[in-house]
């Protein structure tokens, strides 16, 4: 079945019942086939890009570039991997290239304070949106591969084996990256102050 679906593409989904059929349609120049492909994946890929570049304009440009590159490579599409995995792979590579040449404009994190981490529950103590912003700042400071693994695992809820296929490494390596990324994030995240009761 087509990976992902939206209300806008119900008719298209009837016409192209699988990723392979959709790709064949695109290659044959079927009207609306490539538009359907874009509509199916645009939001997911945009979100993935946004999590790397943290602004709408760059995320937009990158998402567009993913589709352009995907179009160029459609002739080489093989049904062994799903179309979405292929798109994710292009997207992650583009995002990693982008962030490696352009340092993200992140807010400086507050210096780590001396706190007892076990005594506080950070989820309860901080506002969610503020926490999300801090998290994005911390994720932006991770090494590229760790960053990709965290974004795909936590925000796109992908299984480790699919992440491995996207980033081109083993499942064990993905899990190790994830573990180390979480350790780094714990250090990078500003910890809430502990109010000492008198």
């Amino acid at each position, binding site marked *: 079945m087509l990976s992902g679906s939206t209300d806008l593409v119900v008719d298209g989904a009837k016409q192209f019942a699988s990723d392979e059929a959709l790709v064949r349609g695109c290659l044959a120049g079927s009207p609306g086939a490539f538009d359907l492909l874009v509509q199916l994946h645009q939001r997911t890929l945009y*979100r993935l890009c946004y999590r790397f570049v943290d602004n*709408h304009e760059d995320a937009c440009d990158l998402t567009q570039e993913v589709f352009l590159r995907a179009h160029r490579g459609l002739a080489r599409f093989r049904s062994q991997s799903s179309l979405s995995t292929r798109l994710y792979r292009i997207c992650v590579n583009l995002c990693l290239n982008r962030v490696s040449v352009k340092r993200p404009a992140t807010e400086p994190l507050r210096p780590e304070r001396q706190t007892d981490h076990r005594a506080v529950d950070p989820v309860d103590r901080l506002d969610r949106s503020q926490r999300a912003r801090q*998290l994005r700042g911390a994720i932006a400071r991770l090494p590229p591969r760790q960053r990709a693994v965290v974004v795909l695992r*936590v925000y796109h809820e992908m299984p480790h084996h699919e992440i491995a296929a996207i980033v081109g490494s083993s499942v064990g390596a993905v*899990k190790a990256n994830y573990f180390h990324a979480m350790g780094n994030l714990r250090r990078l995240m500003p910890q809430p102050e502990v109010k000492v009761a008198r």
Partner: protein
Amino acid sequence: MMGHPGPAELVDLAEGGGAPETAAHVEGCASCRDDLNGLTAMIAIHETARDGGDVPEPSPLFWTHFPRRVGTALESAVRHEPGWRASGLTVRNAVFALTVAITIGMVAGVAISRVPRDGRAEASNLGSASTALSTAGPDYSEVGPVVDPRWAVVVQMAEAAGWDAPEATELFAMDGAADRAIFELSTDERRELRRLLEIELRQ
């Protein structure tokens, strides 16, 4: 007793999986327990941030127009692609075509190089003959004005040249110029050159 579990095993435990013996080890090991607790806490923080909407959603209109935007960019990219790419030539095909072209070039080069080689051999024969002549002393009486009209341009340029400063005449040959000149001749011109050299050698 098993050793400390690796990162992958701790990740499995934090996500609700993992082997029972790993869980048992972590239960009794303060260091591993701290690692696992830290990992679990960070995963929880991320899940909260995700639920709180970490990416602002563009307007629905944006998504309606986005496929058209991609389509326009695609058309523009195809228009500005190099001709070989727009014609559907893939890199693999391009490499194949280049290999064929190089092979043909090499074969042609070998075939062409026979002509100057023969010429040089004849020229070297001519050189040895002139050396023999020079031992007997040069006889300039044989040398007359060039009457062949095909050499008229050369004669004209030679007469006009200032030989005290040959660089200024731009008539002196650069390294390899003769070889290049041979390669630039057409088949008929090479045939003609060969004929002239043979006439000169016979004389």
